[in-house]
Each structure stands twice: as structure tokens, then as C-alpha cells.
């Protein structure tokens, strides 16, 4: 009772790092806008069967090369397929690649980086030499090589991006673990008898999480770009599956006569990439302890 009186007003609520970050993210207008666009794209991808006016493979040779009109809001392609429907189905590929490939990157990169950072020594040396070689490769060149080996297809795109993308995350995780390992709380955990894996998983990794999250948010648009680029040069998605990059690559030859064929998928890629960049910037600022209020 006396305590209540002395304080006079309600104690300010305790705010965790994540609550604070979430609050700051919501205040960032560009990030919210980007997030809404991404949610809309995700919904379109999930419910493509219900939303799309036609099926993405449905050809109609009587309506080939049609400019946007009432029946085909974004026109039709050289086979008479509805562009709007193909764009909606294309969101599926982009969204899947963005999230699944990034999941693969994290599940390869984080354990490798954590092991290298925590155990050090020969393991670390070997891993880091491997990482150096991977860095010497121009990234896209390597992805194209692997895609040529595996053949086109969605699953292979996940694998190719996973195999080449883990390097960054591994490096980042290793640096974080190295820095955290030397701090008192980790020594304390070891002193009270926690085992190596327990210290790593329960004490170090949770503290290394925010830079990893930032890297992942920027990794998603990069993966989407990689898929679009691969499909653009014809080693990504197998037709007739709809992919935005593949459409841009295929239709850029018609750009002066049937401009809309190329412009709509280009715009779709541009809007998606921008939205993810907005969210990425927002997440980075929100998790930056220097900007905390």
C-alpha cells in the first residue's frame, strides 16, 4: 500500500527488445506499406486458384497478343494465355523461393557459423577457408553453374540458393558467437555447469538473433531476384510454370510491339523487391539498439 502511494502513478510497463522493435517497425510508414504489399502478394499466391480468372496454362489461340481489354485486364501472351492469371500464379514462385530458399540458407549457415565460432581451432580454420573460396566465386556465376548441373525446377532453385547463400549467414553468425563467447554471461553459464551445446543454443544464439534476422530479411528479396534472374536466362523455372523473371526474359524481344507483355511482370518484380527492401530497412532500424527509445 505504502509502495503504491509513494510511486504515485502506474509503473511504466517493461518493454522487451522484441516488443520495442515491433512498435518501432509499426511506426515506420514505408515498412508498413511494404509489409501490406507482401501480405497481399502472399495471399494472392496462396489463393491463386480462386483469384485468377483463368488457369495459367490455358492457351487460347483466338486471343493471342491481345492488348489489355475487358476480358483480359492485362492482355494475353503469344499463346493467348491471360497475363493477369499468369502474374498471379507467378507470385507463387517468387514467394516460395523467397521464403523457402531463405529457410535453407539459415538452416545451413547458422549451424555452420555457430560451430565454427564456438569451437574454433581446426574446424573453424577449415570452414573459413571454404568460405573464402566461396567468396572468390562471383555468386550468380556459381548459382548458374549449379542450376546447369541440377537442371531447371523449383526444388533445384532452393538447393542452388541454399548451397551458395549460406556463406554470408555463416560468417555473420560466427562473428556474433565469437564476440558473445567472451562475455561474462556465457562464462557464467559455463561456470554453473552448462554443457557446450546448451550454452551455444540457450545463451549465445538467442543473443545473436537480431543481426541474423536482419540478414534474412534482406536475403529474401535477393533470393527472389536470383530466381527471376535464373528464369530470365532460361535456367530457372520450367515452363509452363509462370515465373515473372521468365516472362521478362521471354517477352523482352517484343518490347517495341507488345510492350505490355514485358512491362507487367517487370513491374511485379520491381514492386516486390521494393516492398521487401522497405521492410528490410524497417527491421534493421527497429532492431538497432542505437536507435532505441
Amino acid at each position, binding site marked *: 500500500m505504502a509502495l503504491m502511494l509513494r510511486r504515485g502513478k502506474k509503473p511504466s510497463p517493461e518493454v522487451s527488445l522484441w516488443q520495442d522493435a515491433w512498435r518501432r517497425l509499426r511506426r515506420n510508414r514505408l515498412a508498413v506499406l511494404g509489409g501490406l504489399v507482401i501480405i497481399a502478394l502472399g495471399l494472392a499466391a496462396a489463393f491463386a486458384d480462386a483469384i485468377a480468372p483463368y488457369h495459367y496454362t490455358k492457351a487460347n489461340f483466338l486471343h493471342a497478343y491481345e492488348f489489355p481489354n475487358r476480358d483480359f485486364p492485362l492482355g494475353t501472351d503469344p499463346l493467348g494465355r491471360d497475363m493477369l492469371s499468369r502474374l498471379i500464379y507467378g507470385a507463387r514462385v517468387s514467394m516460395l523461393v523467397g521464403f523457402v530458399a531463405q529457410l535453407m540458407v539459415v538452416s545451413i549457415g547458422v549451424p555452420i557459423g555457430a560451430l565454427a565460432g564456438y569451437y574454433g581451432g581446426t574446424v573453424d580454420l577449415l570452414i573459413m577457408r571454404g568460405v573464402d*573460396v566461396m567468396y572468390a566465386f562471383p555468386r550468380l556465376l556459381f548459382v548458374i553453374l549449379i542450376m546447369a548441373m541440377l537442371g531447371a525446377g523449383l526444388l533445384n532453385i532452393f538447393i542452388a540458393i541454399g548451397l551458395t547463400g549460406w556463406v554470408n549467414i555463416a560468417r555473420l553468425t560466427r562473428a556474433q558467437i565469437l564476440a558473445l563467447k567472451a562475455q561474462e554471461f556465457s562464462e557464467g553459464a559455463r561456470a554453473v555447469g552448462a554443457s557446450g551445446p546448451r550454452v551455444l543454443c540457450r545463451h549465445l544464439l538467442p543473443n545473436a538473433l537480431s543481426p541474423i534476422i536482419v540478414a534474412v530479411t534482406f536475403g529474401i528479396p535477393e533470393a527472389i531476384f536470383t530466381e527471376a*534472374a535464373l528464369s530470365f*536466362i532460361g535456367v530457372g523455372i520450367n515452363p509452363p510454370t509462370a515465373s515473372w523473371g521468365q516472362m*521478362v526474359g521471354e517477352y523482352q524481344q517484343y518490347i517495341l510491339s507488345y510492350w505490355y507483355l514485358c*512491362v507487367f511482370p517487370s513491374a511485379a*518484380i520491381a514492386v516486390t*523487391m*521494393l516492398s521487401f527492401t522497405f521492410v528490410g530497412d524497417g527491421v534493421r532500424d527497429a532492431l538497432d539498439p542505437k536507435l532505441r527509445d
Partner: protein
Amino acid sequence: MMFYLIRRILWLIPTLLAMALVTFLVMHATPGSPLEPEGGNNPLSPAEQNNLAAKYGLDRPLWAQFGVFLVNAMQGDFGHSYVYKTRTVAEILGDAFPVSLRLGAMALVIATCLGVGLGVLAAVHQNSFWDYLSVTTAMVAVSIPNFVMAVFLILLFSFLIPVLPTGGWGGPRDWVLPTVTLALAPMAIIARYTRASMLEVIHADYIRTARAKGLTDTAVISKHVLKNAFIPVLTLLGPLFAAVGTGSFFVESIFRVPGMGRFFVISMTGRDYPMIMAVVLCYGVFLAVMNLLVDLLYGVLDPRIRVGAKG
């Protein structure tokens, strides 16, 4: 310094060897062979195929093929292209590399000038209209893939306002669109870094001193801020070479520029082993040398940084 340089150059050797080995293995694990790139529709009889394989050394065990490649490559001989049968790989690269190099160099020069300009403008007028404009421009330019940007630029400058050709590599008019397309992303990255690094320097004590002794704003910015702010930007040039190098794949194919990027894609689909190896190693060496140069330059420009010092 000398020791550092030698060590860096020596490190190049195992790195390049590993790159060559990985490329070689991946390439040979790729289904399809240079003798029958189109699978079943091969017009050659088995006997003829065997002859061809013997001619190119493809009948030998893999380790021997790799060894032969290494020995020849060290003498600058990358063999004959399997796709362009009358030309050696070295000849093709000799034609294509200068084109890519010129495109890349022009793009980087434009990117650096515009990028630094935008960054300085934004930092000097922090939180003003100019700041927001340049930050937004940078954000858009960095997040939109260059082949998408190419589509919009072609539409704008070849279709709506027909002033520039859609492709080719004949004269200066052809160079404009590919160069600009390729320059946009690096420009944005440079602008972001310049802005951040300028803002940091502007608040430093020695800048306050410079102002306190009565220098004009222009003098402070040009003599004191820019010089110091540009150093971190310089480190970017290494990764930017890589971005421009691989970015030119798409730009070259859209604008029909006869550079390296086009040959790489053609050689991949044709299983042109000698070409693939040569192109990958070419990029690898180029990137490594550029990174080394940037590191050295870094030490020259900023005496506070001792290249090769521990820590």
C-alpha cells in the same frame, strides 16, 4: 608491406585452384556432354563420337583432364571452344573481355560520380527535400534488378521518346542505355555509403575545428569532409566490381552487347567445357586482383591504416 603483398598474391593460388577444381567437378557432373549437347538427337555415330572425345582428351580419366587443363592454362592456353569450333577460347575472350571491361568501366565511373554527388547532396542537406529525394532514388535503384530497369529504360528512351537504340554495340549512342542500366545499382550503393560516412565525418571534432577557424562551408566540405568520407566508400569498389561483372550478364543479353556475359550463357548450354573454365577463372582472377588493388589503395589514401598490420 612487401610481405603483405606477397602473402596476398600467394593466397590467390590455392583460391584459384579450388575455384578451378569446384567448377571442373560441377561442370562434369552436369548431365549431357559436349559431344551430345542435345541428348538423343546426336547425328554422330558412336565411332565418330569416340574420335572427337579422343581429340579433345575427353576419353581420359577426370584427374588427368584436370591436370592437362591446369598445365595448359598456366601457359595461357585454354584450348579450342567446343561451340565455336574454329576459334580458341583465348581468341574469343580476347574479343569479348575488352567489350565487357569498357562497359563495366564506363558504368563504374558514372556510378561513382553520380553516387558520390547524390550522397554528398543528401548529407550536406540532411533531412531536407534533397536528402529524401536522393535516399529514395538510391533505394529504388538498388532494389530493382537491372534487367527490369532495362525494360523500363528501353520503353522510355526507345519507345515513348525514340532517341536511343534498343541494342547493339556500334557507336557511342549504343553505349548509353547499357551503361546507365548497369550503373544504377552501384550508384545507389555508393550514394548510401557516401551519405552515411559523410554524416559521421561532419560531426567529428576536426570538422568543428575547421569551421571554428573560419573556413567557409564549401572549403570544409571539399577539403576536409569529402577526403575523409570517401575512404570507407573505397572499400565498396571491390564488391562493386563483382556486381558490375555479373550484372553485365543480363545487361549484355538485353542490349545485345558482344561481351563475356553472353558467352558464358551460351557456353553453359552448349557444355563448352574450355569456355566455362576460362570464363569462371577470368572472373575469379579479375575480382581477386581488383580486391587486392582496393586494399592497397586504401592504405595509400589513409595513412592511419597500415596494410598488413595485425588487428
